[in-house]
């Protein structure tokens, strides 16, 4: 009887601890979200989405160039990061145990551990310096490098889950190896791969550091990808540290948009992944 009491006491204690832990995890998240909504909601209006920032000291304006810039940068980064990541993962899954495979895996691990500002420096050295100028291309390369290991790892995990019997079934029908890889192996893991891609996009969408000395930012619309280009996180950063009230307001609005977009992307990713076990 006494044992019972001790146990139910322990149980209650543990429940309390877990409740507390949940609270500690959720509180900052909710606080951040509410704070951003409170500070940013006032800046969100039509102009915010269609205007470029107004000059210092003038009110109004928006962050249209930053948002469009972010989309362009992410699209370009995807062109670099998604195919490279997927083909790398295909190589890893098809040539398991081969020397080059371990080299690729090692590089991906290193790449995913590199602080993003260093990735920015690499893009600076590789592209900004030889091209004699900051450019959207350099920014996209930096973001693409960040995407590669994320796409590669999630894709590899997905491909590992594709049953070998399915590939064998296809090969035994006289389907060429590369067609089997693309249409059976890759297809079967597609949902998970899309999830990985979305998560990698959510990750780079908020990156500021790698853009600081690559894409640089731009107060106006960029006409070429060989020129500096605005990006939402960069604009938030620059406006937040500037001494103008109006710019602070824009920065809060930008933060709200960024958070909502990233939340949406993550939700979509989860939705894609909802019945992964059934394939």
């Amino acid at each position, binding site marked *: 009887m006494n044992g019972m009491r001790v146990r139910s006491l322990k149980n209650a204690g543990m429940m309390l601890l877990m409740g507390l832990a949940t609270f500690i995890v959720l509180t900052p998240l909710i606080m951040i979200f509410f704070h951003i909504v409170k500070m940013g909601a006032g800046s969100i209006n039509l102009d915010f989405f269609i205007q470029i920032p107004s000059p210092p000291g003038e009110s109004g304006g928006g962050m249209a160039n930053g948002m469009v810039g972010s989309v362009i940068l992410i699209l370009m980064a995807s062109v670099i990061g998604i195919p490279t990541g997927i083909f790398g993962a295909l190589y890893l899954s098809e040539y398991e145990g081969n020397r080059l495979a371990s080299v690729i895996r090692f590089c991906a691990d290193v790449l995913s551990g590199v602080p993003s500002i260093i990735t920015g420096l690499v893009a600076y050295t590789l592209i900004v310096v030889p091209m004699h100028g900051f450019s959207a291309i350099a920014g996209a390369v930096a973001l693409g490098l960040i995407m590669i290991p994320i796409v590669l790892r999630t894709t590899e995990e997905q491909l590992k889950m594709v049953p070998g019997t399915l590939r*064998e079934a296809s*090969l*035994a*029908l*006289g*389907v060429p190896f590369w067609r089997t890889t693309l249409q059976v192996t890759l297809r079967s893991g597609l949902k998970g791969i899309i999830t990985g891609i979305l998560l990698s996009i959510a990750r780079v969408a908020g990156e500021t550091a790698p853009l600081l000395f690559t894409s640089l930012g731009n107060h106006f619309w960029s006409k070429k990808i060989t020129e500096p280009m605005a990006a939402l996180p960069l604009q938030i950063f620059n406006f937040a540290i500037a001494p103008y009230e109006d710019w602070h307001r824009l920065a809060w609005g930008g933060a709200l948009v960024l958070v909502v977009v990233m939340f949406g992307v993550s939700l979509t990713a989860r939705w894609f992944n909802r019945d992964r076990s059934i394939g």
Partner: protein
Amino acid sequence: MTTKIKIEDLNVYFRETHAVKNVSLDIPQNRVTAIIGPSGCGKSTILRSINRMHDMIPTARVTGRIILDSTDIYDRTSSPVLIRRRVGMVFQKPNPFPAMTIYDNVIAGYKLSGRLNRADADEIVESSLKRVALWDEVKDRLRRNAMDLSGGQQQRLCIARTIAVKPDVILMDEPASALDPLSTLKIEELIEELKDKYTIVIVTHNMQQAARVSDNTAFFYLGELVEAGGTRKIFTNPEKKQTEDYITGRFG
């Protein structure tokens, strides 16, 4: 009786494991040849060398020759893809493509290879499904997912998918071992019916099944061919003591 497949001095290694040792065996055309032997004796390994499935396994090494009609399938000039279109394979566990309909599963060999002629598709689907006695059961739900079928139906679908690409040879690796007795019976009847057009090699660990369905039997032990011959002879009057012991259930 024509020899369809001539296996000469076949050896298969997985790294250091010598899984198949100096096997020579003739497989006659339009007959059912059973491969029997205790688990791990190399039955699947031999079967998979006949359609070059070991190509996909980096640790596997094959030596010797396998002559299909007059082509040496391991010759440098032989294409594994073309070989596999002539030598189909049915696996132990039914493995239809889970994301495909019944219809698409039947023509998967064409579709996945990008050589499907739309005009012929209906014809191929109907005749292949009829050949495996599945047509009447599924003709009203061809567009349904293949996974809705029972295990036995799935296995017959896999056989239909195999014969759809018009092979000469069908390899079957314990095709009924995952099925219930009634489905097993249907597969066995099907094998009987298919042999007028195809050369069939079936791996089985079920003695009664080998005796029921096959014309010839080859008994393997520890990677070596112990004895091969007519099924009736192997089962009633084997030459080797090992064969007799295995067939009478004294080991294995």
